[in-house]
């Protein structure tokens, strides 16, 4: 059987480039697909004529597109869909296995990511309801109408949504799905090791009746990514702190970098800390610790050493398992150099006085581990003596968290920007301070995993407000 070739999709039309990259099994190096790479000029030309892609979606009502999303969810979860331009198809099982082989995510995590993506498609009406705060979908179709007795009008801010996607977590694709229901074409630059999910989602949408014209799939280089960001009126970028820094504070861009998500325990609840260990450990390690909503710091007013030790006992022994093992909790690294870099960075940080790798004694082996040719990072819990320590507020693509003891009164002054904060407290004054804090994007009050997300509440940016802008209107 030949190797599948994923063409670029130029407004839905397959384009086989003369330049291709190989997507390989992270353990064996076996080539699982070739992917056509386009040059930046192609993006510039296509984006100059993107209007027709938007027109293709405008022909549908939002309600019709919501119905297409629900059908697409079914195709994504259960369908045998086209894979590339050489006659290959892909079943859900094949998708799951292939993605696992290239990304290093074990099957159980891919399945969970698949479910998350499908859920967001199935629940698109709820998602839009949350994003628009209950706006009648006809307002988007017609351009104006009423909301809560008040005239409203919205106009699109862009003809296309640009997406520079990561390779590390397929579920992040759920972030762009509302764009289709909101009649906005997508221009996707897939992550180098993860073309599978965006490609399968596009095929699911097309099978469900969405116009192929609305989908751009442009594997490209650094210059091409820059053009996606520059030429799409609105764009989402995923990357490390350095990558997203250049796009921050510009309303054209929504940046998804490190989350620095945290768990805080108030003075009123700290004596009950053993009861919260499962929630904390899950927040640190679910999804292989790869998400920006994974907790990377646990901030407590006392018992830091004890909590760090208890977490280390729980997480330290976790070791890599076969990718199809249902108990697998760790993800392999598609790029082993990344594991090496992380391991080196943690070791470097530990040389600074004031931090101890508490997991070391429970791990019985090195942090960077290998199994069947795959490279993994085993969990690391570091007890830091303050937020001044370089490891106290770091985020890595693996289960890693610091435990830092800080008086409750100083916590909010020290934690810095945090995508998700789970605050375990019932103290009304502390809750008020948390609610007032501009540093927290999503706030969970009580023992709730940082990994929990709500379809009707965006935790990072609001796609409707990103793609539509309100104007005042008067119609005679």
């Amino acid at each position: 059987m030949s190797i599948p070739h994923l063409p670029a999709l130029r407004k839905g039309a397959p384009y086989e480039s003369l330049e291709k990259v190989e997507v390989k099994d992270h353990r064996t190096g076996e080539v699982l697909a070739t992917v056509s790479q386009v040059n930046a000029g192609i993006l510039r030309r296509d984006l100059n004529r993107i209007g027709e892609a938007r027109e293709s979606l405008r022909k549908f009502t939002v309600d019709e597109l919501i119905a297409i999303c629900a059908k697409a969810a079914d195709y994504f979860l259960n369908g045998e869909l086209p894979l590339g331009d050489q006659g290959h198809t892909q079943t859900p099982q094949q998708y799951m296995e292939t993605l696992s082989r290239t990304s290093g995510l074990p099957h159980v995590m891919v399945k969970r990511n698949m479910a998350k993506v499908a859920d967001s498609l199935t629940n698109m009406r709820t998602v839009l309801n949350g994003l628009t705060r209950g706006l009648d979908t006809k307002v988007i179709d017609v351009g104006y109408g009423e909301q809560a007795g008040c005239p409203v009008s919205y106009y699109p801010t862009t003809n296309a949504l640009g997406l520079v996607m990561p390779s590390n977590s397929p579920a992040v694709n759920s972030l762009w799905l509302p764009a289709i229901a909101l009649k906005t074409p997508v221009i996707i630059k897939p992550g180098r090791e993860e073309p599978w999910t965006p490609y399968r989602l596009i095929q699911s949408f097309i099978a469900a009746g969405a116009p192929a014209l609305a989908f751009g799939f442009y594997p490209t280089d650094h210059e091409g990514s820059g053009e996606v960001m520059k030429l799409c009126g609105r764009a989402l970028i995923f990357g490390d702190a350095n990558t997203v820094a250049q796009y921050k504070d510009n309303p054209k861009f929504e940046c998804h970098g490190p989350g620095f998500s945290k768990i805080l325990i108030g003075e009123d609840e700290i004596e009950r800390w053993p009861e919260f260990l499962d929630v904390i450990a899950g927040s640190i390690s679910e999804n292989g610790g790869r998400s920006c909503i994974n907790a990377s710091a646990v901030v407590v007013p006392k018992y830091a050493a004890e909590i760090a030790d208890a977490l280390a006992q729980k997480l330290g022994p976790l070791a890599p398992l076969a990718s199809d093992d249902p108990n697998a909790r760790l993800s392999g690294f598609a790029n082993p150099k990344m594991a090496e870099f992380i391991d080196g960075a943690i070791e470097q940080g530990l040389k600074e006085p004031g931090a101890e790798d508490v997991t070391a004694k429970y791990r019985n082996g090195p942090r960077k581990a290998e199994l069947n040719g795959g490279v993994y990072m085993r969990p690391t819990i570091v007890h830091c003596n303050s937020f001044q320590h370089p490891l106290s507020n770091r985020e890595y693509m693996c289960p890693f968290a610091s435990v830092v003891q800080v008086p409750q009164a100083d916590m909010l002054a020290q934690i810095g920007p945090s995508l998700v904060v789970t605050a375990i407290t019932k103290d009304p004054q502390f809750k008020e301070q948390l609610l007032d804090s501009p540093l927290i994007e999503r706030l969970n009050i009580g023992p709730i995993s940082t990994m929990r997300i709500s379809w009707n509440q965006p935790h990072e940016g609001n796609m409707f407000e990103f793609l539509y802008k309100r104007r005042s209107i008067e119609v005679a």
Partner: protein
Amino acid sequence: MTAQERLDSHLREIIQWHFSPETGCPFWLEWASKNFDPRQEIQTIGDMKKFPHFQDEWLRDLQPEVWVPAAYKGRPFNIFETGGTTGMPKQRIGWEDFRTDYSEFSEKISDEHFPRGGAWLMMGPTGPRRLRLAIEHLANVRGSSCYFIDLDPRFVKKLISNKQFDVARQYMDHVVDQAATILKHRKVSGLFTTPKLLEALAEKVDIFAAGIRGVFCGGTTMLPQYVRFIVEEVLENRVGFYPTYGNTLMGLAASVPLLPEDKFSITYYAPQPRAVLRVVNSTNTDETVDYDTWGRVELTTLTKEFFMPRFLERDEALRRKPRAPYEWDGVAEVRPFGAMENKIVEGVY
């Protein structure tokens, strides 16, 4: 006489010229006095391995007069500088070589794409470069005149190295806007430019509708996918495309017309016998690499005005077999040496 025999015969003539006190230049006569007499040792192109690699510092550090052949003494010369480097540039002096090279090149471009008498536009590095006079000569040889829009590649390189991408973009727009203005107000049928500038111009102007029928392009890496993009999308298969590889030290190597089986991989052929290109093993430069294998480009220039043995270019390429009308090896898919390992600043030039 075969191409090889013609080359060896030309080589002997050039060696005789540069290493004879009556005709040679101070640099090579002094070099021979300290090393060996090439008039005895060099009979065929294979013997050229006896020469060490030409050092580019010699063209930077020495006064241009050391390169004046005795036979040319007293005749003012042109001083040409190399492309986009910063600091003291390499300089090559010359008298007629550029005319010879470009008169020959004129025979390789079609009247359909570059109608005789139709005006040209050059949008690219002019200033101290040979290309400026060469393009005007090429136009003149074909009974045409040429408009010029300058681009300073040294400034662009500086901007990119300093990460001033916005300013670089503004400068590129400034250059392209001037070209668009000329195309709007004047009848032009032939264009010389660099690939990036061509692409940028096509974003502002419909190249075919503006009257352009042929584009002569050179300057930076043109990998097959990029060539395909230029041919199919920028020029919409309606405008003749003539990629070339060249520089001040060599002249220019023309490409053979693309065939479907080339898959847009361009092969260039040196203007032998005046210049010879070899693709060599970068760790053992005496060794020529196999066909269709990557290696570093080595240039030997053999004219009465300039002798430059075995200069290692900062480029790598695939060695290709001879192809009609050329009876010697070609170089294909030229890119900066080490391009796969390092990030090279090429800019728009």
